[in-house]
């Protein structure tokens, strides 16, 4: 039985198509997912991301605990800033990709994927056990709403006194939105400007309703997981379970930069990752035809030999053709779509980059 989010009744009243995702009952789409995608690219979309995990790490040893537990240099993060990072196993495999917000000198919030946060919380607790830090999984008490798209700032600004114009990308500050206490973060997973608003679960409906009303004139629409997936895919952002798995290193995913060998001290995965060469290469594929490559489909070279596998694929509203990310060990020429080799163009990631 899937868990409903604090916004479940709102989704039902909007006529959402619901889907199970990582044990949660989530809105897949409210109407046309392509229209939701386009709204985020051109105006704004409102997402319920309450399935995500929020784990607080506090205490004098909090920075040291995260520097040991994660591959990033969190001790160097200024309060109010956020960083994209990963947790790896001792063998270098990825446990989860994370955004860590430094709320204060001795307080961090780790935002983890729905499918992984119980494991991330356990690992953080275990990895921090010899350090002066407390790990507290507060996921159940949070709701997370994201406003994404070029009109996001105008919409959120109607509901807060916070200085959004000076809130830079990958920063997060406590504030009030629509009368509700929130961590206001300028982060997202769509390739657009936008905000993620972490609030108490009990405030989720109040904030949702206020955002919908404030955004009506700006073209804000509710957007589901289907649009979120095509938006992040166009933006070349990896998804845990697809591009990122326990059998994948950050280097494989082309994200070796997140592993900070220059930070002081040991960290879980350092020995395995130091000097590691990627075993495969993550590439972008644009289909020449109209059939859609899907997760798990074989990628073949010009001779028809299998050289890799599609990790994510979808029709791309922005490009007008199907796109995919795939791990390959040689130059791809086609994707095997139900027995037919459908030709591809190999492109640099991301597929889509917003105009600044």
């Amino acid at each position, binding site marked *: 039985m899937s868990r409903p989010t604090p916004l479940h009744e709102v989704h039902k009243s909007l006529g959402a*198509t619901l889907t199970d995702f990582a044990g949660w009952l989530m809105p*897949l*789409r409210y109407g*046309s*997912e*392509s229209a939701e995608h386009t709204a985020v690219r051109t105006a704004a979309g409102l997402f319920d991301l309450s399935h995500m995990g929020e784990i607080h790490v506090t205490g004098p040893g909090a920075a040291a605990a995260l520097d040991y537990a994660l591959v990033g240099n969190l001790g160097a993060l200024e309060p109010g800033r956020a960083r994209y990072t990963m947790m790896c196993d001792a063998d270098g495999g990825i446990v989860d990709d994370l955004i860590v917000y430094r709320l204060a000198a001795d307080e961090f919030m780790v935002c983890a994927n729905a499918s992984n946060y119980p494991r991330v919380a356990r690992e953080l607790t275990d990895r921090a056990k010899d350090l002066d830090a407390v790990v507290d999984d507060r996921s159940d008490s949070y709701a997370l709403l994201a406003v994404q798209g070029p009109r996001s700032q105008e919409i959120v600004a109607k509901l807060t006194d916070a200085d959004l114009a000076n809130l830079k990308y990958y920063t997060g500050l406590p504030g009030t939105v629509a009368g509700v206490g929130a961590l206001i973060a300028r982060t997202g997973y769509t390739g657009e400007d936008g905000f993620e608003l972490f609030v108490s679960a009990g405030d989720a409906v109040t904030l949702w309703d206020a955002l919908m009303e404030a955004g009506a004139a700006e073209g804000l629409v509710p957007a589901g997981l*289907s649009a979120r997936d*095509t938006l992040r895919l166009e933006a070349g952002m990896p998804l845990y379970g697809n591009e990122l798995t326990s059998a994948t290193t950050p280097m494989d995913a082309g994200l070796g930069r997140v592993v900070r060998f220059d930070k002081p001290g040991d960290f879980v995965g350092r020995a395995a990752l130091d000097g590691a060469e990627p075993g495969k290469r993550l590439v972008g594929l644009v289909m020449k035809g*109209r*059939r*859609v490559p*899907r997760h798990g489909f074989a990628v073949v070279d010009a001779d028809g030999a299998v050289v890799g596998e599609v990790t994510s694929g*979808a*029709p791309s509203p922005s490009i007008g053709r*199907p796109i995919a990310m795939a791990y390959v060990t040689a130059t791809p020429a086609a994707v095997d779509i*139900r027995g037919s080799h459908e030709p591809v163009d190999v492109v640099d990631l991301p597929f889509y980059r917003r105009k600044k």
Partner: protein
Amino acid sequence: MSSIPDELSYTKEHEWVAGIDDGLTVTVGITAYASEQLGDVVYVQPPEVGSSIEVGDAVGEVESTKSVSDIYAPVGGEVTAVNSAVVDDPSLVNSDPYGEGWLFQVRVAGAPEDLLTAEEYTALISGDS
């Protein structure tokens, strides 16, 4: 509740069949319910004109953002026409599933079997959800 026109026949695979009463040539599409379940349709591959199809054959594909479904032949016979407009603009399956979004026509050979009435199809999808 999705629209389910009374005058059409239906299959368990969520296709509709029109013109079954004259027994000669029928038109086939997918139901409004199916198009809603699929989400935005992005690709349609109908069968080839002139091909012979038998009941239950997978004769084409309807692909949406999230999934792909086979089109099963609801009747046997010869494919006499396919809707090129829906190949060019697959969103017609969503916007007008019983009209502009039709998929193909078949000159029926033999009596079709096991088609559902609108009432029976309504009961089927009520059980689905």
